[in-house]
């Protein structure tokens, strides 16, 4: 019974939010109230998610799984930073230092690894799949890189014209993909609105 009720509630909320876009004069205020409630729930969901993250990592540590020590370190850092943030406030010098000296460099180093990973993946592409499309994919990627990279002699003659010409094809392709994705999103939304897909535990 509860599952039917939650499904009906979710579907009704979805329909009102959707209608609110089409009939703003009549339903705008109701739509905003529903969206505000959803944002509050999403805020609480972040706390639940962080609790879940801590429980999973502590579970790894307590069952002596591989990387369990890192999990413990993560949980200690998480709660220490959270406590410091609550006591000192997010604008405090030490809190900003934690972001600037720890989080930003760590993410930047992952970005550096990403660059190497992407080059490696490109090299392995031809080992994985040798066909016309893969070769074309790599050749176009190399041409684009060549045209946009800085050179010691300055801009390559005709680079803008070449970029515009090639960009015509890539923009067309990208728009085609995005139209397909938009249609897929539309139908996925309709399935949720009709109650066919119920990711909120109603199935």
């Amino acid at each position, binding site marked *: 019974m509860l599952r039917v009720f939650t499904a009906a509630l979710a579907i009704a909320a979805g329909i009102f939010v959707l209608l609110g876009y*089409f009939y703003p004069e009549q339903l705008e205020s109701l739509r905003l109230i529903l*969206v505000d409630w959803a*944002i509050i*729930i*999403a805020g609480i*969901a*972040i*706390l*639940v*998610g*962080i609790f*879940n*993250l801590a*429980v*999973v990592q502590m*579970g790894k540590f307590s069952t002596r*799984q*591989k990387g369990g020590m*890192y999990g413990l370190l993560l949980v200690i850092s998480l709660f220490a930073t959270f406590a410091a943030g609550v006591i000192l406030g997010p604008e405090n010098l030490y809190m900003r230092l934690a972001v600037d000296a720890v989080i930003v460099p*760590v*993410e930047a180093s*992952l*970005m550096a*690894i*990403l660059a190497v*990973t*992407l080059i*490696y*993946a*490109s090299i*392995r*592409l031809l080992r*994985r799949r040798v066909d016309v499309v893969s070769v074309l*994919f790599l050749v176009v990627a190399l041409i684009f890189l060549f045209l946009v990279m800085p050179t010691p002699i300055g801009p390559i003659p005709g680079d803008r014209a070449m970029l515009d010409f090639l960009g015509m094809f890539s923009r067309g392709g*990208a728009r*085609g*993909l*995005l*139209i*397909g*994705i938009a*249609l*897929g*999103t*539309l*139908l*996925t*939304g*309709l*399935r*949720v609105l*009709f109650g*066919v*897909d*119920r*990711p*909120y*535990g*109603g*199935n």
Partner: protein
Amino acid sequence: MLAQGLLILAAVLFLGFTFLRRRSPASFRSIEAYERLNRSVGLAVEDGTRLHISLGRGNLFTARGGSALAGLAMLRRLAERTSVSDRPPVVTSGDASLAILSQDTLQSGYRAAGAEEQYRFSTGRLTGLTPFSYAAGAIPTIHDEHVSTNIILGDLGAESALLAEASDRENANLIAASDNLSAQSIFYASSQEPLIGEELFAAGAYVGAGTAHEASLNVQDILRWLIILGIIVGIVLKIVETLGALI
């Protein structure tokens, strides 16, 4: 007006095709990645390995939420099929709401298979709230938890390369699709059978999630043809207008 018309048309077609598909199941073209996925699910259950399903970090309050919902629909079916496995599938996501929904979906799948007692909430995980922290949190799952197949379906960016690389290092199968163009190009280079564009939204239909998913594909095809027709008519009208101005 056009948006309302499109929505109503899509809804009517969807209901019509869902009714039709209940009477006569559809037959779709073969997509190698989904065939590999169906094989991998069976093999994972048999050899006691695990599926890792990454739903990305699609925020449900944005248009990116569509791919996350498509991933959840597939997850529901996979959870049902793998509920008897010694090692249950692990789901990672980079958005808190999505992580909670993944737990709910897993539980629904186990319940439908009559194995709700097997469900553990720790199998639906939030691994990070920023793109790279999400990837950094998901990579140990790929390396350390006997994963034989990684299914990455959702909204991801360039960080998806790190997940694909981790999967490759473990010699695990990789089935990956995203609504993000950067991630699509990365998956094209990293996976054996890439899924491009709207093929992401076909996941439910190809894992047997029901007639509504098959009907969705039919409606997508019809709408796509209508858009193609609209583009062609637009081109012809533009040419006629230009020629008219010249004459």
